[in-house]
């Protein structure tokens, strides 16, 4: 019984995370802040959301040039 409650709590938290993630993606970044990026070159995770955003921006800039 308690295990089911535990699973329900885990699902609720996953749902909360999903909702907040989609809501966060939809809120626009304030003007003047689109070009900011943290310096995460020392981290080795290749597929982080920040890294892919950074490489996209780099490709865009290179495409413009």
């Amino acid at each position, binding site marked *: 019984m308690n295990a089911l409650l535990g699973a329900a709590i885990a699902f609720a*938290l996953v749902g*909360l995370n999903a909702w907040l993630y989609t809501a966060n993606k939809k809120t626009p970044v304030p003007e*003047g802040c689109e070009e900011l990026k*943290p310096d995460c070159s020392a981290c080795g995770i290749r597929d982080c959301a920040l890294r892919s955003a950074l490489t996209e921006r780099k490709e865009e800039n290179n495409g413009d040039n």
Partner: protein
Amino acid sequence: MNLFTLFLSAMLINNIILSKFLGMCPFMGVSTRTSNAFGMGIAVIFVIFGASLLSYALYYLVLVPLELEYMELITFILLIAAFVQLTDMIIKKHSPTLYKQLGIYLPLITTNCAVLYVAMDNITQKYNLIETIVNSIAVPAGFMLMLVIFATIRERLQGNDVPKAFAGNPIAFIIAAIMAIAFTSLSGLV
């Protein structure tokens, strides 16, 4: 437990980076400039404080009455991730200046070992609410202090002649070793 002792030991003596080795990933990545370091430090203080209080409340109000203590790890990490998303959203909507300073570091803090460690340590050490608050502010304050010191040193090192094999991260670890020697001297204080 004496709150001042707790604060001092959490911030300086058992410093989370030099003594417990937690939070190293952003330490290596974000410490190349002092302004970045300040922003990251304030963001970490805010996230650790908020996440620790929320997880403390979750543990004692939900998990313990339902005898679900084994769910601690799963619920804490999900709560931390949700809290970071919420904070990011609130900062984006309400304060562009604050977003410029620290909003960009928030996604990096989700998988930071330090946040989960502080949240779980408050439970393991059986702190009451006041001690939790003091611990949750002292630990990230120590993190920010080390980050700023480290960034200052690394900035000064930038024009210098580092051996090629040591360039980048290895020399950063040597700097951390020297800082660790300095702070080990405090270990007999309390």
